[in-house]
């Protein structure tokens, strides 16, 4: 009987201590949302380039458009340049990768670019995105870049090129 009493006393003390600690604590959720790293890559090869194709300048300044979609259709917006069929051009293609079903914002570092023939001749162009947002369906989305190229009446013959940058960010 004596031993039994001592044990009960110890239990009582522990319970008291526990009660004291409980009164000072609070419970909160701890969460983290780990996102897949977002990737944005230009499709390798000619299909990845924004290409206005082969053009013969006209007698006046001309604007050549490439639609910012999968077809990358070329047309003469103004002027009288000849769009030569040997190269019909195409839109630029980029692949976005990341968290499935996430939505990303898209932008161009600069919508105005200047193509150069590597010497003194240049041509200005204005870029356009296929959309300003994209949903990564299944973790992937394809976007396109088109734009307007301004060709002067006396544009120097040659191959013109430049680079541009597309930015993507999780919303």
């Amino acid at each position: 009987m004596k031993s039994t009493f001592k044990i009960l006393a110890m239990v009582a003390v522990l319970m008291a201590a526990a009660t004291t600690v409980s009164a000072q604590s609070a419970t909160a959720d701890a969460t983290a949302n780990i996102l897949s790293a977002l990737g944005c890559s230009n499709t390798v090869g000619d299909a990845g380039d924004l290409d206005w194709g082969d053009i013969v300048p006209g007698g006046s300044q001309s604007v050549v458009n490439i639609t910012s979609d999968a077809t990358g259709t070329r047309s003469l917006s103004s002027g009288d340049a000849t769009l030569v069929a040997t190269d019909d051009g195409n839109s630029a293609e980029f692949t976005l990768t990341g968290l499935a079903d996430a939505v990303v914002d898209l932008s161009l570092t600069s919508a105005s670019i200047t193509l150069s023939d590597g010497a003194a001749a240049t041509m200005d162009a204005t870029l356009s995105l296929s959309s300003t947002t994209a949903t990564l369906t299944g973790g992937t989305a394809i976007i396109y870049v088109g734009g307007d190229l301004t060709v002067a009446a006396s544009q120097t013959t040659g191959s013109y090129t430049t680079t541009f940058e597309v930015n993507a960010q999780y919303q």
Partner: protein
Amino acid sequence: MKNIKSIFIATTISVLLSNLGFGQSASGTGTGTAEILDAIQVTSDQTLHFGDIMSHYFYPDVVRINLSGTNRISILGWAILLPSNDGQPGVFTATGTPNRNFTITLPGDYEVYLSRDLGGGVDMRLENFVSDPNVLGTFDGTGSREFRIGAQLVVGANQLEGWYSGTYDVTLEYF
């Protein structure tokens, strides 16, 4: 000791957040290109001429200007090809962007007729146009290329004498 542990945990969290920040955005670089070509220009250096011909009184004939071998022949053998003028192929010089290919489109068989300059008579039809190069040519390193044109002339029986002339179109396009 307890303080040291707290500092270590805080540092770890900071590094994780930093890595997460890099993954939230991405950039891709694309290339914009365009090719400006020279306008193709064609100049005639020599007229396609079928020469002097004496038609047969009863039978029609076809006279051909060749691009190789014998310059001029009578297909059916009825007309007399006079040596006073043996005829000549049409010769053109085309200019464009160096080393680029181009196609040559020639007139069809019922598109070109020669008419008597003084009027009267029956028009003579041209057919079977040929070119050298055939169908496809390439500008040389200076952006120039000569090409020649031949054809057949349908001469009627007892064709009225006189000078006959007409025009034909040859179209060159980049290919």
